Each structure stands twice: as C-alpha cells, then as structure tokens.
C-alpha cells in the first residue's frame, strides 16, 4: 500500500513520462524481435497451437514475452491514465484513475504471467 501511495503521489510527472517513453522504445525493439522470430518459422505455421506452445516452453522466448507484457502494460495503462485525466478533472476522480490504472496494470501483468508460466510448465 505504501508503495502504491509513493507511486501515485511521490512520482513526478516527468519521471512517469520518462518511464512511458522508455517502455515504448523498449517495446518497439522487443516486439520487432518477436515478429522476426515468428517470420523465421513461416508466419502461418508459427501460429499453430503446437508451435505456439513450443515457443512458451523455450525459456528465453517466454522471458521475452514476459518482458513485452510488462512493458506494454506499463505503457498502455499510463496512456489510459493520461487520456482519462484529460477527459475529466477533480481530486477524487484523478485519485481513482491513478489507483485504477495501477490496479489494472498489476492485474493484466499477473494474468498474462500466469498464462506464460502455465504454458511454460506444460500445464496447458
């Protein structure tokens, strides 16, 4: 809770935006690697169930997907926060938007990580 409070109230907007730009740049690079790896397999074949599963079971690739998930969740939910802050203003509303976006981000990362881990461990 204290960490959440620090994130919402102590971080300067410039720090948040540096993270926003940084995650965008890193995600573009890693998504490019991800797409190139799909291309190497032949695009259509690479989307077959068995191939997708095999990718998850290859630890470095699963790690790459996990990092992309984290980067895009941070970038996406901060983008959503910015849009919502511009749509409407007010102290309680802004507090709700900030906490809501952090909760959404954590939720999405947790759910995505669970899928990656389960696929990696052969539970799917």
């Amino acid at each position, binding site marked *: 809770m204290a960490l959440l409070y620090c994130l919402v109230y102590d971080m*300067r*907007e*410039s720090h948040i935006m540096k993270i926003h730009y940084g995650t965008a740049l890193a995600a573009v690079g890693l998504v490019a690697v991800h797409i190139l790896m799909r291309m190497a397999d032949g695009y259509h074949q690479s989307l077959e169930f068995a191939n997708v599963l095999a990718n998850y079971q290859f630890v470095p690739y699963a790690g790459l997907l996990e990092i992309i998930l984290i980067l895009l969740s941070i970038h996406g939910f901060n983008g959503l926060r910015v849009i919502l*802050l*511009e*749509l409407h*203003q007010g102290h309680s509303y*802004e507090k709700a938007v900030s906490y809501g976006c952090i909760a959404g981000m954590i939720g999405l990362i947790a759910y995505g990580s669970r899928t990656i881990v389960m696929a990696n461990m052969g539970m799917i």
Partner: protein
Amino acid sequence: MNNTIKLRVKRSATDDFDEFTIPVQKWTTVLECILHAKHQFDHSIAVRYSCRQATCGSCGMKINGKPSLACFTKVSEIDSDTITVEPMSNFPIIRDLAVKFDRLFENHRKVMPYMDNTPPESSRMHIQSPAELDKFIQFANCIKCGLCNSACPTMATDTSFTGPQALAQAYRYVADSRDKDKDKRLRIIDDSHGIWRCHFAGSCSQVCPKGVDPAMGIQLLRGYMLGLSD
C-alpha cells in the same frame, strides 16, 4: 473588393448571430467594423479593446473561426465578404465577444513570471551575451492575448492544463541566463496537468500574432526536464 461587408456578431443573450452591413476601406480592421456596428446600429455589443495596435492583448476573438486580434486583422486580408466574429474558445464568456481571463492570469502567475536576478557577488550587473539573449527573446514578446490558449485542443478538454501561454512564459524565464529560479519553475510545471499534457498539435504557434512559438518553447522546456539541456 466590395466596399461593404456583412459582419456577423455572436451574441451571448440569444446564442445567435446578429448581422450588420458595414462600409469598409482597404485598411479597415475587424475591430473598426465591430465598433462601427456598435456605434451605428447596436450599442449593446460587448467587445474589449484598448491599444488598437496589437500591444495590449485585449481584442482576441475568433474571426471566421480562427483566433485572431481584431485590431490586427484587416478586412482586406480576409478572403470573404462575410466576417463572423465569436468569443474565443476555452474561455468563459462575460458577454458577446468579451471573455474572462482569470484562468490565463492564474496560470501565468503560477509559473513565476519574474526573475530572481540578484547580481553575482563579483559584479554589480549581469552580463548576458547576444546568444544567451537569443534563447528566450521571442518569448518576451508575449502580450497575454490568450489566442494560443483558445486554439489549444488540450485546453478544450483539460480544465486544469497550464496552457501554452503560461508554459511559453515558463520557458522564457527558465532559459534566461540571469534567473536563479529555474528548478523551482520546472518543479511547478512538472505535474499531472502541466507540460506533459501538451500533444504538440502546434495550433498555439499558428495563431500567435507576435511571432512567439509556444509549441517550440514547450518542447525546449521538455529538454530541460529530460536532462537534455541545462
């Protein structure tokens, strides 16, 4: 060019336009047309003006949809025989063409538009090179007319946004080599409705009648915040 034009004035009481036929010359300004309508046809038209020479920043309004100074816009430079004048967007309307400047002045004050220019101990004055002056001098031309704030799309949705006028003034002082309050000023605009909410639409710079480029000032300020300038 015809020697009359049709002037359409937005009236706040009816939320509709009143139309007047106004005789014009090549040099007639839109402000003179409005004052003609006010003196000859309807003295209740509310319009604010003072210097009539693009210096006081009082007569901002939308002229055929574009935020402009009425005293600085000649009828002959508008490619139409119909001129529509409306109050500036993103400002509360007092009456007709007169709008409230409270938010603009409040944001302007917030960025500390003044200098702590205590001279260095070694000398009784500040030495500033032409290159140092060049960094901010165009921003010192701002007359606080509010046209940039009226054109800004973020101002339209974010009622707490600092706005291009105040951000350009923050840059004017941050970039001044004599000033000592740079960090304080950067801290003030570094909030959730400050400098980062500019999406670089650039409409502020398009409409400025004094050649100030607020969009550029905002990007240069971001350079300071990202540690790319000092």
